[in-house]
């Protein structure tokens, strides 16, 4: 990192470009096409080049059976698959199914938690991309319209 930066400074050109896009040095750009896809198929095609993923029981997807509140649904994904490059969350019935894509760097364990929004009852798919292919598992989460508390 340090050497790279010094090199750029020495080069003295394209400094503005690099400064404006610092994250391109660190990770891939935000995948706008995949995030704007309206179906899970489109999103996966855009993200992985194929909507075909191998179902895997080596992925653990922890989501509630009935969401207390569709605006805050706790989710944890972990996997024993090796050489994981990315973990994605796809909520099939959301207007834009791709919720998040986590790029797992070397040294980071393939185990992430977050809180997501769900518009309605839907399958939630955890997609794990490794150096040998794409794997997935799904669970349904029921989203109900609240009474008084909701």
């Amino acid at each position, binding site marked *: 990192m340090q050497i790279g930066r010094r090199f750029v400074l020495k080069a003295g050109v394209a400094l503005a470009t690099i400064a404006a896009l610092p994250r391109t040095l660190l990770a891939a750009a935000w995948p706008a096409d995949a995030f704007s896809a309206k179906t899970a198929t489109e999103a996966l095609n855009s993200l992985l080049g194929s909507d075909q993923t191998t179902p895997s029981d080596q992925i653990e997807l922890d989501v*509630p*059976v*009935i*969401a*207390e*509140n569709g*605006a*805050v*649904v*706790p989710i944890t994904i972990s996997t024993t698959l090796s050489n994981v490059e990315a973990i994605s969350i796809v909520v099939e019935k959301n207007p834009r199914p791709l919720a998040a894509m986590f790029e797992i760097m070397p040294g980071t364990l393939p185990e992430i*938690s977050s*809180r997501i929004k769900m518009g309605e009852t839907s399958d939630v798919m955890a997609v794990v991309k490794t150096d040998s292919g794409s794997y997935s598992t799904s669970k349904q989460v029921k989203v*109900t*319209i*609240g*009474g*008084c*508390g*909701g």
Partner: protein
Amino acid sequence: MRKAAAVPGAIVAALLVQQTALAGPEEDRLALVAHFQSRFPDIPFAEFANGIYAIDSDARSQWLEIEEFPPYEFAVERGRELWQKALPDGTMLADCFAAQLPDIRGQFPNFDVASGEVITLELAINDCRIENNQPPLEYDSSEMIDLTAYLAFEARGTKVDVRVPDDQPGALAAYESGKRFYYSKRGQLNFACADCHVTSAGQWVRADRLSASIGHTTHFPVYRSKLGGMISLQKRFAGCIRDVRAKPFELQSTQYRNLEYFLSYMSNGLEWNGPGARK
């Protein structure tokens, strides 16, 4: 009670009426605790401070996930900064309170003999500001919520111990007024607070399960996931009253303060565990 069982019905009824009239706050509280313990025999008393999460395990696990890193922590931090900042004349808010930091939350609500009114934590904070020539805070302003969130956090682990002094008829009257409010049906839907949270606690209303009365006041203010923000106890009162399609009262109205007084007394013996996170 057992003796009464042998007595003819009319006399029993008369005795019961008399008992109602005579029952003091502590009798009320013990009866309510007994009611919930017989309804939920597997739930330890202390757990009622967690509301519906004491009753529903699927909801509880989601709540625990939120509690891993609850959004109210930002409110607590802002509240701490506000608390530690002197008012323009140099007064600290702490100077207005007789108790140590962890005990401030638990001093309220109380009955103030001089004014003849129930004083809540929000009122006390504003009284302090007014005494020091500062404008009072709006009751649902973020500053007020943050301050109460901080004091609630500092009070965690102390026990609710609301007093209705025997020698203060005004205190008992305020308590009774809150109790009457709690048990009176209101609104187009004709529900009393107690219809849901005493009689039907644990049952479903559409997609929600109803929580029990005891423990209702221990954890405010709360972060409501639905709102993506914090709300006060009295704002929650207003929400419930709106839900039964009655017109809500003003925050910190006499009605709400008396209700808070009664309902907080019902939580005596439970731990203060605010601020909380709710759906």
